[in-house]
């Protein structure tokens, strides 16, 4: 912890002020563990959920990019098929493209859902 100025006296101290705690992310570190719940489990659950949300964000991005690529695989198969060494032919692209829509929506729903839940939790606490 870097030393910082405490109060008007300008005295240096290593103790974090209450203002520093307040500047953390929304909801982060605000909620105290409930009675009978260990600190470890409390932190682990919250962070795991946020991590899952973040991962679903990346998964959504990858799925959106794949949807765009397979879309081009249908309409621009003369370019995409040789670029993917024949892996993304027109039929494969179309097959995937039609299935990807629901997956993108599901992944995006999880990502946005967790983000909203976290924000709501932060404002509630």
């Amino acid at each position, binding site marked *: 912890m870097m030393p910082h100025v405490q109060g008007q006296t300008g005295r240096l101290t290593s103790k974090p002020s209450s203002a520093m705690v307040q500047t953390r992310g929304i909801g982060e570190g605000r909620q105290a563990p409930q009675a009978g719940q260990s600190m470890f489990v409390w932190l682990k659950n919250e962070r795991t959920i946020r991590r899952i949300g973040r991962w679903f964000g990346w998964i959504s991005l990858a799925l959106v990019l794949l949807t765009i690529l397979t879309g081009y695989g249908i309409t621009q*198969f*003369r370019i995409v098929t040789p670029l993917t060494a024949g892996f993304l*032919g027109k*039929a494969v692209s*179309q097959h995937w493209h039609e299935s990807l829509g629901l997956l993108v929506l599901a992944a995006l729903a999880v990502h946005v859902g967790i983000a909203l839940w976290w924000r709501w939790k932060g404002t509630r606490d």
Partner: protein
Amino acid sequence: MSPLGTKRRPSWIALLLQGWLVVACAGTGPSLSASGPVEIRQYQGQNLSAISDILETDIAGPQYVSVDTYRLKVSGLVTKPLELSYDQVLGYSHFSKVANLPCVTGWDATLLWERVEIKDILATAGVRDDASVVIFHGVDGYTSSLPLAFVQANDILLAYKMNGLTLPAEEGFPFMVVSESKWGYKWVKWVDEIELSSDTSYRGYWESRGYDNNGDRNGPMFQP
């Protein structure tokens, strides 16, 4: 110099107006003097799609075929192989019909087709008893097939006009197979050979790349 002795400067507004008039007249000129065939957009009360509505999804891009050198070959299991010129094909009885071209990628186009019946051409060539499949070859290397029984029982035709205009090069000039009730990948463009075969396991270009061999519009799109 003007009579009053002052130098007259050109009126830029007048010049701009003159320029605009020249451009506007030039723009309207061709449409006023157009005398060529016009695309039909309505037939017997039915609205038709525009030729430009057809999206280009060909395997090698548009093909440009010369009528002078063009020959339609009828080969394979026939008693009398044929090589017909463009005019010889047009010599068969032809008629008009509205048919919908559905593409697997989601678009479709309803157009008026002028065409000859393939079964008339096959009758001239004489189909052998062991033939069961008709394979269509395009000049771009594209192929697709239909069961012989289906071709003989239905109006499977060779179109040479769409919406009253001779097929544009981009849309399959000189001939395009019109396989009504089939997906667009059964509508072979730039047909230059009709081959009769007994190979029921034959798969055309897209059929060998995952699309269903029957190609029925109401059936499955992909191979199981």
